[in-house]
């Protein structure tokens, strides 16, 4: 069951990502990104991280991507033209991608023994409440990073307000 979900939604995520690059209309690209986000959420859920999956759907697909689509709609962005692209992307991009691929496969293959025996998502099985564990962790051991992140977001909001009010 888990394997079937992984294959279907992994393929969907890859297809969405490719479509995002190949589509010429920004709205279609944005919607492909939504598909990618949703497929990732399903993958998280199948690994037992249900809260992460819900947060992914609500925050990324439900809020951030709606905002993207909104902006694209309001700007009335037209179709993009295919340009040859920058020279740097070609010279660095392909070797870079190949290097990352090699590095990842090297790590996975060399750690194969450890990965085979590890129970992915085992700590997050539905027998134990996922959210209780997460919140206990966030408010005890990770309290400082959590609060600092909140302050960071607050600063971003204040910055946005300052920028928006400047014209008056």
């Amino acid at each position: 069951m888990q394997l079937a979900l992984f294959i279907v939604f992994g393929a969907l995520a890859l297809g969405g990502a490719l479509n995002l690059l190949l589509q010429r209309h920004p709205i279609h690209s944005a919607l492909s990104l939504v598909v990618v986000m949703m497929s990732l959420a399903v993958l998280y859920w199948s690994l037992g991280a249900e809260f992460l999956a819900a947060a992914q759907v609500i925050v990324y697909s439900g809020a951030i991507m709606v905002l993207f689509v909104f902006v694209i709609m309001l700007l009335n962005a037209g179709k993009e033209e295919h340009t040859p692209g920058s020279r740097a992307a070609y010279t660095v991009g392909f070797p870079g991608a190949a290097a990352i691929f090699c590095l990842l496969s090297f790590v996975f293959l060399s750690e194969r023994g450890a990965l085979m025996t590890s129970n992915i998502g085992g700590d997050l099985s539905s027998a134990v409440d996922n959210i209780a564990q997460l919140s206990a962790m966030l408010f005890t051991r990770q309290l400082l990073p959590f609060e600092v992140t909140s302050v960071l977001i607050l600063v971003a909001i204040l910055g946005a307000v300052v920028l928006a009010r400047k014209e008056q």
Partner: protein
Amino acid sequence: VNHLTNFEIFLLLSVLKVAVVLVITLLGVAYTVLLERKLLARMQNRWGPSRVGPFGLLQPLVDGAKSFLKEDMNPLAVERPLFILAPIIALGCALISMSVVPFGAVTRVQGVDLFQIANVNIGLLVILGVTSIGVYGITLSGWSSNNKYSLLGSLRSTAQMISYELSLGLSLVGVVLRAQSLNLRVIVDSQAAHGMLSWNIFGGFQFVAFFIYLMAAFAETNRAPFDLPEAENELVAGYHTEYSSMKFAMFFMAEYANMITVSCVATLLFLGGSTSVFGHLFDGFLNTPVANAIFPVCWFVAKVFAFLALYIWVRGTLPRFRYDQLMSFGWKFLLPLAMANILVTSFILAVRG
């Protein structure tokens, strides 16, 4: 039955449950429309639909047939795939949320719970997530129609839904704090002890949260007094101006399906779900397995029905808000109130616990 494996039984019963819930929800949608037309008519001293069948009871079927048979027009300038996808997203998301709603008490047949399609640990978050995806249906319909009224209507609607989603989500935090879980069954069980007295709205002292939820729910479903997206004197018909036939019917059904979902959530979170109004007072009365399975479902349906009637009553009573009033009400009143409710609730729970 014996030659099927456990998984096959689970699969068969699940598919059956999905089919039954789908049919009942769609029928519910059709008859909510009729209920609304009838009740509104009586509030305005009219009869409402009365010609088709006894008391007009067959009206929804005839309306459905009409929508099917009408010509399905596609304007030339629309963005074709998205124009067709939009109503499907709207209706699909409206129906998917029903999958985590527990309709009755836990009743197991062959190990499968009869009255809930999926018992998910994060049921509440699933409903919120699916609702937030439903916004795409409206956004895309307005944009792909290539019509200024549609675009303005969908912009209004999307902005309204995003704004009120915040208050909606925050109003539910108090309930979650009390139940200490996002599982809908656990939330219902936390209100089961003394019937009406232990409902979150009364015994749980979450009436402020209920008020916020009520307002936000009206706005989320684009219903009066917040039905600005389809203010016909300003926007023709809003985001579904260019839609006809079955595609229009899908938006229409999505609106009523959303109403039913919102009523279900209100019932589960504030009105004790499928538990009896009288608590355990009449537990000895008719204590058979069948009655114990059926009575909770009846309570649930009665509560949802009452909430739907409230929806219609409000529509028949209140005039429409102005758009700036809507936005300032949501952001400057409901949102701070919801936050204050969370602080007070968690403070009291911390002191008592």
